[in-house]
């Protein structure tokens, strides 16, 4: 188990770092690396700009998204209002929508001849959005759900006795918030901010989509360019990846230091669940601002996709309504169809594999006394922090070595490498979902079965799997959904003549076929959602029945 995780996650990451020190090692020559390449990041203007942009985007988005997510979570944890459920649903929707789709929506909306300019005459919007601070805003609107969920989770329970005691002693509500409630939320705020930062600096979708209209190289984008121009520079991609890993490690260290300073386990049996109530006055104001907010965060990017997919172009207006783009999607020999089929195949295999591995890892974490349990947990977490683009390069270093060919394992250039990368990306999430469900199944059940002579195999299949069926399904579907839309990994690793759905969409977008890209996005996403819903419907009722029998 440890070996599998090591191979899938740690080895590629280690390869990126080793490659910086010994550049030739994966291509059959042993020589000490020229470390000056690492310092080049401060000498080469393009690299330096990429580093600066990544840091700026990362810090700016982290600050803004944490404030926004925190504020929303505070409001939502206290009040309920007419469209509050809609906010909950939208947050999840934003969380699962890949950043390249959101960014494409913004480009279609705000570019010089985009929807905003041609439908509403807002030509000033272009300069407002396509500048570094504008991109921070766009990024914030797609990443704040991470901070929102982290902080909202911590707000559900409150140690109200502490606040009440303070109030009794004469503290004002502001003082109470500042000295008691806010510090108690600190761990949640930190981990929310941390998630936003890691997701932002590693994000490939946004810079890739924005690049069609605005020059804003970030580390992930420059890594991608180093691999996709001739001559290919693996060493440069490795050096830039190194800095990306350094940024993320720095952020994690800062968080660890902050968290270490104090203890936060203040929740006791006296904690009460926070009551959500209706605002005393101005309920309509909550509803209105919520609707406006959602119209901007979700309405603009998704609405632009819908609109572009059914028109000739942004400037054509209502008269340009057409279904041509959808027709070309499904015409014979369409790249979208083959891309979709490829992505579905890859994601299905990846989902099944990550389910099996995740199930076993979760079993070890929950029930065994295995000494390296902690290590297992940490490795699976690491893959959550490593950006897809870095993982992708690591995969090239590992799976593109010529000696592998003699044992038939030269996986680079075959679809299998995409499957492996998909599994690596899905494992942390899948493992966590399954361990959550396993925690509710007492170990005695398994011990009792073992006493009766049930084999390990039987115990897993007849006791554990049926009892955790719901979580297994959710985990598999999550793995399926996330690997279908992973742009970073599939852009780097897709084999020749084996384009995947996100690659097809991104290529169409790069070639400015906005209508086609939008139609492909919606058709692809629609199909994926349909598959997930159908599977849910088929498997869920069966679960209820099974439970009825066991009771």
């Amino acid at each position, binding site marked *: 188990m440890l070996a599998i995780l090591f191979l899938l996650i740690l080895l590629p990451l280690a390869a990126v770092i080793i490659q910086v020190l010994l550049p030739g090692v994966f291509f059959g020559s042993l020589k000490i690396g020229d470390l000056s390449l690492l310092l080049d990041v401060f000498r080469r203007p393009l690299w330096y700009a990429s580093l600066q942009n990544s840091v700026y985007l990362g810090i700016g988005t982290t600050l803004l998204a944490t404030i926004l997510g925190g504020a929303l979570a505070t409001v939502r944890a206290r009040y309920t209002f007419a469209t509050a459920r809609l906010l909950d649903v939208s947050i999840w929707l934003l969380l699962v929508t890949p950043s390249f789709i959101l960014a494409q929506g913004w480009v279609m909306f705000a570019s*010089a*001849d985009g929807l905003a300019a041609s439908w509403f005459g807002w030509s000033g919007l272009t300069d407002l959005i396509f500048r570094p601070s504008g991109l921070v805003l766009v990024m914030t609107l797609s990443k704040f759900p991470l901070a929102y969920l982290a902080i909202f989770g911590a707000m559900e329970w409150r140690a109200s006795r502490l606040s009440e005691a303070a109030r009794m002693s004469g503290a004002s509500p502001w003082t109470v918030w500042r000295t008691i409630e806010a510090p108690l939320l600190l761990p949640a705020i930190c981990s929310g901010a941390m998630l936003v930062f890691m997701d932002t600096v590693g994000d490939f979708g946004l810079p890739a989509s924005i690049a*069609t*209209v605005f*020059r804003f190289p970030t580390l992930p984008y420059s890594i991608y360019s180093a691999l996709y121009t*001739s*001559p290919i520079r693996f060493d440069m991609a490795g050096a830039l990846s190194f800095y990306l890993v350094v940024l993320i490690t720095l952020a994690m260290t800062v968080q660890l230091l902050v968290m270490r300073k104090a203890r936060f386990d203040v929740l006791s049996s006296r904690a009460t669940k926070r009551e959500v109530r209706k605002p005393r006055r101005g309920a309509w104001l909550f509803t209105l601002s919520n609707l406006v907010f959602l119209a901007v965060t979700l309405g603009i990017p998704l609405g632009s996709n819908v609109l572009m997919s059914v028109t000739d172009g942004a400037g054509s207006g209502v008269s340009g309504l057409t279904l041509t783009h959808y027709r070309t999607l499904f015409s014979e020999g369409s790249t979208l169809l083959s891309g979709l089929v490829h992505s579905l195949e890859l994601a299905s295999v990846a989902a099944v594999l990550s389910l099996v591995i995740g199930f076993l890892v979760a079993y070890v974490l929950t029930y065994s006394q295995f000494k390296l349990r902690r290590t297992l947990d940490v490795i699976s977490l690491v893959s959550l922090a490593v950006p897809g683009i870095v993982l992708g390069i690591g995969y090239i270093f590992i799976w593109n070595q010529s000696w592998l060919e003699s044992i038939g394992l030269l996986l680079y250039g075959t679809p299998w490498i995409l499957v492996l990368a998909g599994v690596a990306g899905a494992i942390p999430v899948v493992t966590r979902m399954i361990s959550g469900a396993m925690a509710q199944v007492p170990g005695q059940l398994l011990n009792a079965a073992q006493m009766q002579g049930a084999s390990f195999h039987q115990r897993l299949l007849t006791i554990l799997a049926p009892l955790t069926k719901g979580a297994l399904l959710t985990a598999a579907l999550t793995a399926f959904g996330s690997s279908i839309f992973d742009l970073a990994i599939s852009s780097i690793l897709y084999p020749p003549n084996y384009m995947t759905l996100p690659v097809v969409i991104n290529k169409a977008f*790069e070639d400015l076929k906005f209508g086609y890209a939008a139609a492909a996005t919606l058709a692809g996403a629609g199909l994926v959602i349909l598959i997930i819903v159908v599977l849910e419907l088929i498997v869920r009722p069966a679960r209820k029945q099974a439970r009825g029998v066991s009771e």
Partner: protein
Amino acid sequence: MIDQLGKNGQLLENWAPGNKDGLTDFAKQQIPANGTYYPTGAHAASVIVYNTKAYDASTAPKTWADLAAAKFKDVVGMADPAVAAPAYPFVAWFFQSQGTEAAQSYFTSLMKNGLHVYPKNPNVAKALTGGEIKAAALQESNAYTLKAQGEPVDIIWPEEGAPASVRVAAIQKETDHKDAAKAFVEFLLDPKTQQALIDQGEESYFEPSATGVTPKQDRAANAKLVVAEAAWAGEHEGEIKQWFADQAVK
């Protein structure tokens, strides 16, 4: 790139297709001594295109040097040689024919003059019709497509020549399907194939490599292609692209 592959011994050497002698003089010049690849056609990596709403034939830029002139400040665009495939041959020609220093100072003067660098040629075309820029160094089929769509643009072939992107066909040395590959190269060099590509193909604006093929009617008669030597361009590709990328980001 392909030239480097040929030098590294990765391509089939010293094989001559049947129509080798039927190629144009321009095409013949591009064949390397070891016969590893043969041109199938060439198109201008860049021609000068301008928006006719902004300029007329007399005020439009006519030479590459014009693009750096003060009156075209902030209105000129081109594709990024590190991203767009045809943009590298364009830049490489300046570096080889004028020497590194002169080329660097030319592109630096363009950038100081507010050059817009877009990732690919379609982005340049879009900026040109959208009004973001008024003149551009644009790949030829993009340029003619714009014109065919009725966009307000016109095309100028500079007298000193338009740097060309040469398309070639080569065969992998170790291939298991040598005969099929040879037949395909013969097919690509066949005048009938090239004529069909021009008459019915999607990328139909190019200069055929076989004699006896007529280019598109509306393609300028004075279209003069110039080209950087493949070996030289291949050797210096990395450094030139890097230099350009580093300058453009400033």
